[in-house]
């Protein structure tokens, strides 16, 4: 639940999502749901020469289960707040 709330705060920011098939997609975070499925807008694939498979796609839905990493903008994370929130979660609420 914590990371769902956290990703909702990042809506509108530019992120790079690296998938478990090594594809990396950069775009504006449009929305996220409870499964951490992600919708990106105005995407471009990192290394388009190697991966031209999504050249005709502008907006996409990424299934949460295939996400390896989400690379965040440097100003997208307030470390103190996230620390506190994760400690609270670890204590059980």
């Amino acid at each position: 639940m914590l990371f769902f709330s956290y990703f909702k705060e990042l809506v509108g920011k530019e992120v790079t999502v690296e998938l478990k098939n090594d594809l990396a997609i950069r775009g504006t975070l449009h929305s996220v749901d409870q499964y951490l499925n992600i919708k990106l807008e105005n995407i471009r694939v990192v290394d388009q020469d190697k991966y031209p498979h999504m050249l005709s796609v502008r907006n996409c839905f990424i299934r949460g289960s295939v996400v390896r990493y989400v690379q965040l903008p440097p100003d997208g994370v307030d470390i103190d707040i996230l620390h506190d929130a994760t400690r609270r979660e670890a204590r059980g609420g």
Partner: protein
Amino acid sequence: MSTGPGLESLVDQTISVITNDGRNIVGVLRGFDQATNIILDESHERVYSTKEGVQQLVLGLYIIRGDNISVVGELDEELDANLDLSKLRAHPLKPVIH
């Protein structure tokens, strides 16, 4: 939840699906559910290779199980029209390794 990344906005639109085994299937989205199982109408597969341009295989009506889906992309007709698939060469996408 209206802000969630459901696929309702894509129903009856042409989408490009990348599956976990690295295939690329293009078709019209007719339905979906919470597990991302999808119904694709008038679908075809785009087969990428380094030896020749993209081959298109007609598949027809397909149901793809959500477990096997990586990405669902909204196919932009204009971008797609400007793409010369016969000249596009690339390795097929790698399968997903969990």
